[in-house]
């Protein structure tokens, strides 16, 4: 079966009776089964998804008007709560844990008749760039199973790339939606901080975390964002900014002023990426956009500042895993202190421990000013620098990653190398801005490459419109 190219086409086929929701779900289930060796799904909600599909078909046959996301079959990253279903954040710490409520984003998608096919793997507590830091084994890249799919939403990107679902909900703290999207050749949208409620998203670094969307088209990302974004009484950091009707805005092809990041020697950008990047600039100019190069001298300070702040927040957020009320509890403790220590030591994996230790260090009294406070000042500086940039341009173009997907195992003993690979993605999280990774070009005709557009707060319509323009073959 060939699935129509995007959600509007799927919905038209469903309405026209040429396709049934049940067929669609059966197709995705088959694809998930066929790609089992990639270790994408931690759990497939088979019977439930089929039942929901039949229900949708019956309602449509009766002439009932379906929700906006009918026919939208999703997977969700293992950090999003779905009531009555397990969620483990890729960790032994939460093995067997069952959500008692649904994340607002999940609830809103379900309320509009989306179907959730399953829960997909990720780096433990969303900490990692490869999906190798999951307690449930690495996920492999569908393009080349000997390579990583990226991370931490690596299995979300793999799920979309392997055609096991239409789109996937992930989370992006320092690039965790965009980098895997680039590695697997799909779209990855990280909205403005606060655009989507974080209620029911397992916290990693709360001032950076944002739910994001991995999809095959910009149209699908827009349609999903429309439904899941917006104010929520259960998240006090969510923005009150109204969500515009996004789909008509996709067709906005007005000329934009686009600054492109001039790449330096130090960035170690793969020649294939440099070439695709310059091709994209040409392509944008051809379409009437005005391009100009820009230097961002702070770029090299962002990964250091990001890792200080994110690990500090992580060490605080993950203090809740104490073995008392939920999560893993050791069987070997005498007193309560030992219960904390042993439960945490047994429950957390190596990367999570490393980040908790680093975060604890930068927050400790003697080092707080030199590290944590300093990083917050860098954050202020980059925000200022970008605010100034928006005075003269609409969007910023830069590669998503310095390299395409690397082989499994290459970065496992090199945390610093892994962290530095985030150099182009952390900027959006540091400044709370929206960014999208667009699949654009291949290395050696095979490995997908991603290019990134970043905009001022709430510029999602412009990002999606441009992404659509560059790649759209929408119905």
């Amino acid at each position, binding site marked *: 079966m060939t699935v129509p190219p995007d959600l509007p086409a799927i919905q038209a086929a469903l309405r026209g009776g040429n396709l049934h929701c049940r067929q669609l779900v059966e197709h995705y289930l088959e694809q998930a089964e066929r790609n089992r060796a990639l270790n994408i799904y931690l759990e497939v909600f088979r019977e439930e998804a089929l039942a929901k599909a039949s229900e949708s078909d019956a309602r449509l046959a009766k002439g009932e008007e379906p929700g906006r996301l009918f026919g939208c079959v999703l997977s969700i990253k293992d950090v999003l709560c779905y009531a009555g279903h397990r969620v483990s954040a890729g960790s032994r710490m939460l093995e067997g844990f069952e959500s008692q409520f649904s994340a607002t984003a999940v609830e809103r998608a379900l309320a509009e008749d989306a179907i959730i096919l399953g829960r997909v793997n990720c780096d433990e507590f969303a900490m990692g760039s490869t999906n190798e830091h999951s307690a449930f084994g690495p996920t492999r890249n569908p393009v080349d199973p000997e390579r990583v799919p990226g991370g931490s939403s690596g299995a979300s990107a793999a799920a979309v790339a392997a055609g096991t679902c239409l789109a996937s909900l992930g989370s992006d703290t320092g690039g965790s939606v965009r980098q895997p999207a680039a590695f697997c050749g799909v779209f990855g949208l990280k909205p403005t901080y*606060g655009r989507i409620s974080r209620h029911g998203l397992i916290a990693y670094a709360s001032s950076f975390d944002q739910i994001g969307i991995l999809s095959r088209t910009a149209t699908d990302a827009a349609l999903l964002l429309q439904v899941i974004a917006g104010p929520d009484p259960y998240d006090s950091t969510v923005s009150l900014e109204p969500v515009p009707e996004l789909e008509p805005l996709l067709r906005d092809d007005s000329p934009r002023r686009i600054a492109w990041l001039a790449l330096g020697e130090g960035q170690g950008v793969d020649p294939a990426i440099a070439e695709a990047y310059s091709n994209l600039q040409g392509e944008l100019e051809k379409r009437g956009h005005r391009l100009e190069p820009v230097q961002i001298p702070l770029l090299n300070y962002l990964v250091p500042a990001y890792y200080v702040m994110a690990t500090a927040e992580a060490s605080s957020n993950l203090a809740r895993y104490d073995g008392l009320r*939920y999560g893993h509890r050791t069987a070997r403790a005498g007193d309560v202190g030992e219960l904390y220590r042993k439960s945490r030591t047994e429950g957390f994996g190596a990367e999570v421990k490393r980040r908790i*230790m680093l975060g604890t260090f930068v927050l400790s009294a003697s080092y707080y000013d030199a590290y944590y406070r300093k990083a917050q000042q860098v954050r202020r500086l980059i925000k200022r620098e970008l605010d100034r940039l928006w005075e003269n341009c609409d969007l910023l173009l830069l590669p998503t990653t310095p390299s395409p997907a690397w082989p499994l195992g290459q970065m496992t003993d090199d945390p610093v190398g892994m962290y530095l690979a985030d150099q182009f993605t952390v900027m959006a999280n540091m400044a709370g801005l929206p960014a999208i990774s667009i699949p654009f070009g291949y290395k050696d005709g095979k490995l997908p490459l991603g290019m990134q557009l970043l905009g001022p707060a709430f510029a999602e319509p412009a990002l999606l419109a441009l992404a659509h323009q560059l790649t759209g073959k929408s119905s």
Partner: protein
Amino acid sequence: MKVDDSLISRLEDLARLELAPEERLRLQAELENILDMVAKMQELDTEGVEPLAHLAQHPAPLRDDEPEGCWPVGQALGQAPVRHRDFFVVPKVVSSPNA
């Protein structure tokens, strides 16, 4: 920066973790590498720059002070590793005065 054994012990204690001897050694080296990478920030002059911790764009709106979204006790305790009736069971945290 040099990360010595006593610093690792102090962080372990603060983070409530217990590392195996080989994990301690590895982490010592890794933290040193990470802190060397992070030291780059010190090149920047940030004198007088106000720290920016969070990006929420407005004062946090609060919900009305009405109870809602409450769960029955059984559900709230549903994920407890060990429970007794309506309570979480934890190791004893106070000792009796006579002990």
